[in-house]
């Protein structure tokens, strides 16, 4: 028995899902996409029930990845019973998706969630009236308090049924639906999609296209608009009959602070700064503990085994990669994700996007792009994965370039370990400033030369609410799993590869070949090239390798300040790490990945050479 949850983003679907399934969530990456479907199993009356949390969407006839996935899921009847989660505070708007779902004629129940929030706003929702309007059972719940969540499954299994409502479309549309059904035998939902130009059946699309053209001429409105208006009108009627506005308690509107230029923008800057600062402080503290623990409990015993050299090398490289993954991924990225999930769950990120809209426009992007950019400070891999929230290829391309340049936590380790420690803390900040200037410069150029249409921001501002600890943790955990899933294998494979390089002493040959560049152009010692090469594998390794090759942890004694500074800036700018390249390739294809790699290599060498000349 399979049950699927669907609803608008922010309707509390995930919280309900978490409460229904408890722990033990599996995340299945949907084939061929980066959208995750969360599945969990529960046992109810000795029967195993699989619960699927579909991605939050606003509509079923769009072309975003999420919408297509949910549509396909419904088309192949992926679940036996559907649970439509509606937002009690936005009942009318949530019903819009429900009207579309009913067109698929599948067993369904309605859960009106966040009833506690609606009560606070003085909204009184008549569940029985709603149930008789929709023709399906309706349950009022408050997931944040856990109210009536336990009644969802019994109701779904016991009385889930096909909804009786049907949107009364404009008579021209209805006529078209009838004639398509008669001539081609297409079901209603499919014809509706075809009239809006969506679908794969060429014959159906052609037939529907001719009719919709006719209708558009007659109505002076696109068919999409007509259909949307018809649906919204019905939702309005239903909501009007089921919702009553009682006394509204006066509450202070925090948005009067958060969404104004002042003090909103200073707050935004402070929030982001605090986020990064706490990630750095907590992250480096945890990193120290984990790395030390791993060294004493795993690496030392392993080296004590004294395996044959080749195997020792391979095993050692693997362990080092694991240690790095756990030492960096876990402390920095997980802390970062905690902070980010916290910000998202309070609803602040949408405000940040709104405020950042203008600044982002200057970079050829729009407000929503702030989210991948901020994630990029934690780790570039998930930042690239989050690029899909941007709607056009143009924006994704520009943002991918910029994200690849944003100093991630691993690069912060390089800056802190080399420059802050041996040159000076102000010099360390100057690297950030140089990188930011280069990012802005890159963005300005790219926004002029990148082909494609600029598309703006349309974001629903999520309601400000108190985050749920459990949900924040669950979300961060899911994300870190996503990271481990992609980055870890790459990390281990490249680590072994580099170990072998060292074993067969190919790195010396490499050093010889690139010596002119390292020594003459960048003014660095010969062995720095190997450190930079290792930095491609993962950024903070550039720092560690440099120390190993220099033969001392006191880098200040073997390299001049100018050399250290130059080395740090080159390794920060230089080509993204292998995990990033892998995920870039998956998300944007070979061409953009190659362009980004070439550009950053060029930029790193250029800036390194300039620093070398200036500081000589």
């Amino acid at each position: 028995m399979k049950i699927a949850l669907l609803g608008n983003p922010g309707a509390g679907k995930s919280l309900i899902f978490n409460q229904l399934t408890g722990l033990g969530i599996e995340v299945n990456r949907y084939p061929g996409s980066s959208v995750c479907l969360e599945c969990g199993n529960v046992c109810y009356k000795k029967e195993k029930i699989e619960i699927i949390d579909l991605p939050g969407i606003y509509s079923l006839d769009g072309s975003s990845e999420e919408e297509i996935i949910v549509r396909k899921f419904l088309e192949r009847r992926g679940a036996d019973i559907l649970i439509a989660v509606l937002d009690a505070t936005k009942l009318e708007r949530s019903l819009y998706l429900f009207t579309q779902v009913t067109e698929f004629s599948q067993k369904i129940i309605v859960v009106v969630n966040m009833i506690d929030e609606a009560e606070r706003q003085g909204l009184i929702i008549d569940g029985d009236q709603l149930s008789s309007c929709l023709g399906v059972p309706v349950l009022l719940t408050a997931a944040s308090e856990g109210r009536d969540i336990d009644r969802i499954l019994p109701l779904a299994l016991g009385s889930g049924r096909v909804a009786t409502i049907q949107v009364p479309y404009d008579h021209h549309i209805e006529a078209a639906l009838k004639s398509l059904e008669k001539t081609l035998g297409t079901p209603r939902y499919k014809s509706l999609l075809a009239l809006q130009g969506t679908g794969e059946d060429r014959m159906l699309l052609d037939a529907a296209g001719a009719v919709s053209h006719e209708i558009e001429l007659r109505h002076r409105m696109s068919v999409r608009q007509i259909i949307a208006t018809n649906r919204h009108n019905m939702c309005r009627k239903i909501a009007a009959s089921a919702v009553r506005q009682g006394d509204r308690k006066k509450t202070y509107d925090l948005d009067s602070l958060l969404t104004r230029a002042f003090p909103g923008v200073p707050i935004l800057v402070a929030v982001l700064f605090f986020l990064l600062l706490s990630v750095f402080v907590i992250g480096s503290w945890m990193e120290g503990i984990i790395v030390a623990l791993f060294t004493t409990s795993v690496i030392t015993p392993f080296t004590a085994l004294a395996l044959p050299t080749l195997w020792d090398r391979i095993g050692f490289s693997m362990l080092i990669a694991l240690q790095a993954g756990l030492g960096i991924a876990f402390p920095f990225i997980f802390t970062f994700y905690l902070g980010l999930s916290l910000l998202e769950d309070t609803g602040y990120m949408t405000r940040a996007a709104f405020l950042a809209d203008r600044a982002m426009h200057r970079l050829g992007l729009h407000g929503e792009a702030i989210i991948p950019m901020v994630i990029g400070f934690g780790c570039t891999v998930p930042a690239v994965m989050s690029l899909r929230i941007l709607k056009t290829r143009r924006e994704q391309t520009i943002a991918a370039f910029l994200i690849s340049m944003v100093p991630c936590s691993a690069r912060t380790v390089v800056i802190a370990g080399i420059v802050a420690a041996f040159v000076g803390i102000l010099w360390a900040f100057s690297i950030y400033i140089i990188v930011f200037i280069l990012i802005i410069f890159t963005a300005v150029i790219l926004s002029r030369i990148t082909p494609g249409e600029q598309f703006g921001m349309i974001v629903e501002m999520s309601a400000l609410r108190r985050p749920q600890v459990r949900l924040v943790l669950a979300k961060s955990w899911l994300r870190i799993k996503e990271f481990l899933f992609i980055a870890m294998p790459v990390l281990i494979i490249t680590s072994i590869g580099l170990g072998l390089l060292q074993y067969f002493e190919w790195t010396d040959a490499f050093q010889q070949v690139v010596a002119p560049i390292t020594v003459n152009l960048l003014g660095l010692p010969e062995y720095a090239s190997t450190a930079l090469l290792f930095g491609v594998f993962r950024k903070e390794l550039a720092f560690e390798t440099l120390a190993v090759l220099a033969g001392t942890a006191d880098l200040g004694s073997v390299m001049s300040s100018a050399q250290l500074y130059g080395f740090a800036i080159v390794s920060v700018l230089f080509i993204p790490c292998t995990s990033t390249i892998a995920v870039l390739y998956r998300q944007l294809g070979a061409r953009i990945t190659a362009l980004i790699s070439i550009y950053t290599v060029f930029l790193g060498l250029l800036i390194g050479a300039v620093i070398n000349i200036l500081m000589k």
Partner: protein
Amino acid sequence: MESSLREDYLEAVQHFFEKKGHHPSYEELAVALSKPESVVRSDMKVLVSSGDVSLLAGGVISLTGQGQQTGSSVIKKHETLQCFLSEILGMDSSAASDEACTLEHAVSDETIDRLGQLMVKQDGQRHFGQRGHGMQDRSGTCRAGEEECQYPSIADCTEGEHIIIHCIQGRASAKRLLDLGMVPGERVFVKRKVSNGALVVQVKGCDVALSPEIASVIGVERLK
């Protein structure tokens, strides 16, 4: 004097002026209205006393500010009605003109405004129709041009304004707006507008943030 007669005179004088570039004499006005000159002379005296007309040297009739305003407004009404009757309803153009002469005195300013907007829309639709034939994009949304929407856009509105959405232009990507309830006829409240032109609008109880370029494709009607 009856108000319709007054309006006819003022209209005629203004029309003559706009067409010929100078003000009419009694004789010219009488010809234009096909009335005896004596009647015109006596009626003019009444209009002079009501402050609509001033007589210049040599029997030339000119309009005061008030008279000119009325005259122009009646001409506009006449033209709009005549256009509506002939273009939209398909009446014969001279019959349309005659009928417009009667209707113009009774019709309200609002009706004329709305008729005007309707015809602008119709006009836009004709362009839309022509484009429509070549429109084979899969999204199927209308890609009508700028001329379709003669309304101010949300981007022109200020914080705190209540508006009604009138039309959403072109762009396939505006689909998300429809999903969020931004459909023609929907009442919307402009909750926040920051100096960069980005807005937060309240629609169906939800706050939606829009970039300036998105806001500029949404034609609206402002509510006072």
